[in-house]
């Protein structure tokens, strides 16, 4: 089947991209001042202590050797040892990925239908008060960065009114109900960041679709208004699907800020920690995982495109 061949080709391209990403990340980390030994030992280190620790951590060998060893291990399924946590990288990254996926998944699950709905309503009520209200609200949501929204929500809903807990630290002993409450503020912050772009894209392409001759024709043939909207929507969704795919990438890497504000131990937090502490094995795996997720999301978007628009054949 042609579409299967297409998916295989795209997966191959993804592998090439990931290989390039791994080399780039490795190279960039080498350029940063300081290394994991100066990070661990801090200002109180003597040159002898630094040399001993570098030798112990294997940092004295040439960079290409260390890179080759690491990438060989990754291919075999051994993701290496985190230099800082002194633990295997794999469970740490996979656990972080799982947690981030839950957070991002919840946000997408709510934000996608909500913003499509808002976009359709805005398009149908174009230039009327409801349309203006939706535009204004989503623009306000977009205009404030996540760290402002996150802090505002904590101050308002956790500190002042104590409705929701301020931290989404995962607690194995807490009940499921209280765990659910912990997700409210971070997910809400993410939704606010996602809403505007998707709503406005849906609105614009919906207005465009309503104007198209096929919509006019459907209406003239006497289809019920709801069928007409559904008809137009299928055509209007194409650009929105692209935006959703982009947002998956944003969510997996960019929820760094939200995870930090709400003390959520996901992949974003791991990335920040590993950059700050020159933990090369961890940093590279976390980056590779984010890059893979981004690539897979775009692949998924292409498949959905093909489903929505039968004319698209690769």
């Amino acid at each position, binding site marked *: 089947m042609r579409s299967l061949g297409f998916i295989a080709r795209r997966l191959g391209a993804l592998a090439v991209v990931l290989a390039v990403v791994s080399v780039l990340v490795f190279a960039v980390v080498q350029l940063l001042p300081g290394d994991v030994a100066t990070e661990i030992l801090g200002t*109180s280190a003597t040159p002898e202590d630094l040399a001993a620790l570098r030798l112990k951590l294997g940092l004295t060998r040439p960079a290409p050797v260390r890179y080759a060893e690491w990438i060989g291990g990754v291919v075999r399924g051994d993701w290496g040892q985190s230099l800082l946590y002194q633990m295997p990288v794999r469970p740490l990254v996979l656990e972080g990925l799982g947690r981030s996926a839950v957070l991002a998944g919840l946000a997408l699950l709510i934000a996608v239908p909500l913003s499509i709905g808002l976009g359709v309503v805005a398009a149908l009520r174009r230039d009327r008060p409801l349309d203006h209200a939706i535009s204004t609200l989503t623009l306000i949501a977009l205009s404030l960065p996540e760290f402002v929204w996150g802090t505002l929500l904590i101050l308002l809903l956790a500190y002042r009114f104590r409705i929701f807990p301020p931290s989404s630290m995962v607690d194995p002993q807490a009940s499921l109900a209280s765990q659910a409450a912990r997700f409210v503020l971070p997910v809400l912050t993410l939704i606010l960041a996602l809403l505007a772009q998707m709503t406005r894209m849906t609105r614009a392409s919906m207005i465009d679709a309503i104007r198209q001759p096929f919509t006019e024709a459907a209406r003239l043939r006497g289809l019920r208004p709801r069928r007409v909207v559904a008809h137009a929507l299928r055509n209007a969704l194409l650009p929105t699907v692209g935006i959703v795919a982009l947002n998956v990438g944003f969510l997996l890497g960019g929820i760094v800020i939200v995870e930090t504000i709400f003390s959520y131990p996901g992949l974003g937090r791991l990335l920040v920690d590993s950059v700050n502490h020159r933990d090369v094995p961890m940093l590279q795996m976390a980056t590779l995982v984010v890059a893979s997720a981004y690539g897979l999301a775009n692949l998924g978007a292409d498949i959905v495109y093909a489903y929505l628009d039968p004319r698209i054949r690769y």
Partner: protein
Amino acid sequence: MLSRRRLLQYGAATAAAAALQPVTLAGSGAASAAPKRGGTLKIAWASSPLSIDPAYAVSGDEYMITAAIYDNLTRVDEKFVVHPQLASGWSSNAHGDVWTFNLRRGVKFHHGRELNARDVVFTFERILDPKNGSPARTSVGPIDKIEAADDYTVRFRLSIPYADLPISLGTTYARILPADRAALIKTAPSGTGPFRLAEFRPGAYTRMVRFQNYWDPGRPYLDELWEVNMPAMAAQVAALTGGSVHAMFEVPASYMPALQTPGVSVVSVKSPGFQPLTMNNAEKPFNDVRVRQALKYLVDRDALIKAVWQGHASTGEDHSVPSFSPYYAATTPTHTYDVAKAKSLLAEAGYGSGLNIELWTSNERVGLQELAVAYQQMAAPAGVKIDVKNVPWSVHVATVYKKKPFYANNWFGRASIDETLYPYFRTGGGFNDAYSNKDVDTLLDTGRATTDFKKRKEFYARAEQVIHVDGPWVVPYFTMYTAAMRSNVKGVAVHPLRWWDFREAYFEG
């Protein structure tokens, strides 16, 4: 032999001098009511612990965890007084270079085995082996050799006489490890401490549970102790006021008003931490003592304390000994803000037409950037044009510290007087850029070998005076350490070195 009695007298002198220090005890009501058993205490930290191996642990959150899992031979309290912990007593020879420590009997590790002298030997040999690259190697005292005299006696042979050994053995690095579990220290630690490690999840939390067979009967009082990682201060404040955590490791001055609510206690103590402007006196223009003095006269210390720390700091005298130290002595002349004096000193040194210098600092340590910018303004009227260079902390550590001729730095301070002065000002000291003064060297060498408190104090007072006038540092202030707790948390003393100990902690009511 220095008898136990003499040693206790020395300890008492230290204690008497240190008692003047205004330390607020959070658990001041502890004596009146009997501590209650049970409860789970959670303390919030902005950072995440990375290593729970005491020989490599370098941050406050890690210290708290290793203090709960392990014991030291000695305990250094919040007044810097030394108490027995795993050691029941100690003594030294008259020369002060051979120290004998007697171990408590019947102490159990979490994995069931009884503590003996071989565990102590293992612990220190592990730290001192250069192959292990532990930052503790130069911080546990000048130990040359350690040996087990019998199952319950260890002997430290030192390379030089060293009076501060009992304090050094109480530091965070020197937790006693089990000799039979060398490979498990990083992953499945077992100590003799009051809590066992139950879960270690970097970036989320560390959970510790009560050790039933702790050697100190009845302790600890808590069932569980949690270190919780919360990077955002706003989240910490909301969690503490809401009661989902019970303590905050550190409260920045700007968050103090938000914690003035019923049920929360904010506790501030003077700390030995300081932020010096460090001059490399091997390089021009800092090689001229008149330039160094001029720069010391260009600090408006009171204004800095108000502007940078909202009043939460105490005046520094251009050396590293804080006013609450038993070894502190007032220095002369007082370096008050004096532009005219600075100008004349600069003119004498040949910089009458002005001086252009770079000052390196970092925006990633509270107060450092503000300090540099404020100093830039204070120095300008004397014709000293300062170019402030701001870098992230990791860059500061790698390319600024000990490499640039003039930079702001951040130190937390140490418990013993030797470690407070020697590494910074002794020729060749570990944290010394280039300072070398024969008088200071002699005073510091004699001081560390002297066990008599009065004589010692005299040596250190003289060293402070020389460094005050001649030294390479502007020390504008000593910082304060502020933490916060739920008011019903008792039995926790806020330690000037930011060490948290939950052995005596309990919930009231």
